């Protein structure tokens, strides 16, 4: 297909023009309930979030640490189903037509809905991209290819174990941006080190023009600044989800998000 500019592409074009790094925030849809989760989501752009990563709850999140596992459990306990995730996106889109939304999760809830039906619903709800943890390039025919045909970005994870031999396969059908996983491990685990991440990001950027965003193990404004400084931006998830899980008021959650965003936006290229 001739690839039109997506909201994700537009966002990175804007950031480049402003000379700014990107800040991506992850929250779990429906955590702890739909109303609170939607209130947080609506506040994210105002707090400086450039791209929203919205988690789709799943009973068996194999790449996630306890913080995000528990968030998914809270959402599921409040009957957060795929229909409700899509409704949340529709509700958000009524007030925000520009902030990109990337759904992140696991394949089975998508497969259970049926790929064609899921993609039609996702596009009409206003979703821009997908990150599906358990779909490596070897399984591209399942969802990646149909998703791109439907006009969605399919954002692939690259990891410390993605060697030079494998990198072209990982980049081949990736669009929007490349999500570099800073550590071998699960979300909310070991802290990402800019000194380790920098050379890896540089290695990936030699093979692609796509922005490279770094996630996993980033939980303070200082870390966000350090990691964003060696990439095109960073993702924070568990640190935000932890605040939501602790029952902090929405305003306080968003204030902490704003500090993280300021960290990332304050980064300059090393």
């Amino acid at each position: 297909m001739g690839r039109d500019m997506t909201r994700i592409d537009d966002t990175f074009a804007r950031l480049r023009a402003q000379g700014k790094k990107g800040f991506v925030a992850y929250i779990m849809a429906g955590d702890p309930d739909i109303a609170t989760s939607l209130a947080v989501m609506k506040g994210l752009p105002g707090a400086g979030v450039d791209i929203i990563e919205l988690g789709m709850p799943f009973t068996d999140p194999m790449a996630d640490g306890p913080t995000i596992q528990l968030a998914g459990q809270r959402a599921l306990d409040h009957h957060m189903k795929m229909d409700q995730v899509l409704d949340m996106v529709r509700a958000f889109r009524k007030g925000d037509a520009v902030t990109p939304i990337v759904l992140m999760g696991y394949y089975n809830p998508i497969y259970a809905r049926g790929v064609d039906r899921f993609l039609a619903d996702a596009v009409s709800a206003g979703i821009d991209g997908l990150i599906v943890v358990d779909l490596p390039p070897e399984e591209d025919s399942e969802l990646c290819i149909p998703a791109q045909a439907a006009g969605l970005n399919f954002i692939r994870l690259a990891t410390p174990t993605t060697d030079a031999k494998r990198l072209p396969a990982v980049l081949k059908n990736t669009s929007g941006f490349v999500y570099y996983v800073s550590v071998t491990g699960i979300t909310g685990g070991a802290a990402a080190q800019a000194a380790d991440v920098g050379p890896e990001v540089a290695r990936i950027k030699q093979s692609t023009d796509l922005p490279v965003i770094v996630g996993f193990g980033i939980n303070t404004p200082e870390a966000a600044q350090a990691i964003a400084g060696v990439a095109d931006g960073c993702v924070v998830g568990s640190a935000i989800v932890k605040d939501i899980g602790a029952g902090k008021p929405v305003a306080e959650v968003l204030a902490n998000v704003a500090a993280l965003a300021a960290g990332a936006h304050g980064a300059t290229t090393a």
Partner: protein
Amino acid sequence: MAEDGINSFMTGPDEAGRFGIFGGRFVSETLMPLILELEERYEFAKTDPAFWAEMEDLWTHYVGRPSPLYYAERMTKHLGGAKIYMKRDELNHTGAHKINNVLGQIILARRMGKTRIIAETGAGQHGVATATVCAKFGLKCVVYMGAHDVERQAPNVFRMKLLGAEVVPVTSGRGTLKDAMNDALRDWVTNVRDTFYCIGTVAGPHPYPAMVRDFQSIIGKEVRWQLAEQEGEGRLPDTVIAAIGGGSNAMGLFYPFLDDPSVGIIGVEAGGKGVDDRMEHCASLTGGRPGVLHGNRTYLLQDEDGQILEGFSISAGLDYPGIGPEHAWLHDVGRAKYVSITDAEALEAFQLSCALEGIIPALEPSHALAHVMKIAPGLPADHIIVMNMCGRGDKDIFTVAKHLGFDMKI
């Protein structure tokens, strides 16, 4: 030779690790390079005589193979129909079929230079087998076990500790086998460079389902020559029957007979309290539908939104909401038949085996035996059934005592 235009049922999986639509490699990118390396190393080992020589040596001198094929005469007379043989894999070192596969994976892990072994376990048999082989080779061993299973399989937990393994009780989810597998995958993705994940059943991402099947196929291969020895050259079983959680003992018994059309193949799932809307069972094929979990597409117990449901069974070893992808395929193409047996039926078979044959079976093969009890009376005396007695019942005596109302403290 086979029906439905399939020339052979023994050629799978294909290059993408698929058996029909089932199987595959649904794992995160961090694990993908390792999975590919494992596949490469296994493909090499498979045709390496030195690898199999090491396996044969350990099977013979460490495990005690071949396990006997035993004519259960009193059981046969009691049921009054088909002639019943039991494949005695419960006599293996560590008391179950699990060690057949563990030896293969650990030899492979050593060849790959891995120094730390992780495993998931339900009933504890795979954990004990892994801890055993790790002790023998001086490897560090970490076993993930659902907290609920730690409680109901206490003897095996202690065995693993005696053997030097670290047992990690898993509290996420309902604390059973599925959750233990999630945590083992989380460990693996974190320690991918020095760690080998020794999966205990014919599930997980390719190449595990095929690799574990190949290691367990020793069961069916032995049955072929043992039955010929006892019943005459060329005599094949008329029916082979095995219990299925993930399905490794069953796949090991079934695989060498897949292309023998005269051999009927029956897998027995755990029916728990009954396969109905309450979903208090683990019968993935009879009560589930295709989905993706733990690296493969297979039949899963799940709700309409693709959320995975917890299984239920008296047997910790069958308490898994999925099933190996090759079974899912054999079910769909009709080469094997899958049925379910309830907790109550399995308990009855457990007691009958003790009383008539002097064999205390594990609760897992008690399910297979319960189905034998259902069908044997209606079959002629020259119909030979081979059921896989895949584990011994020592680990289950506390559970059984509780269900029979027997106070162990007396």
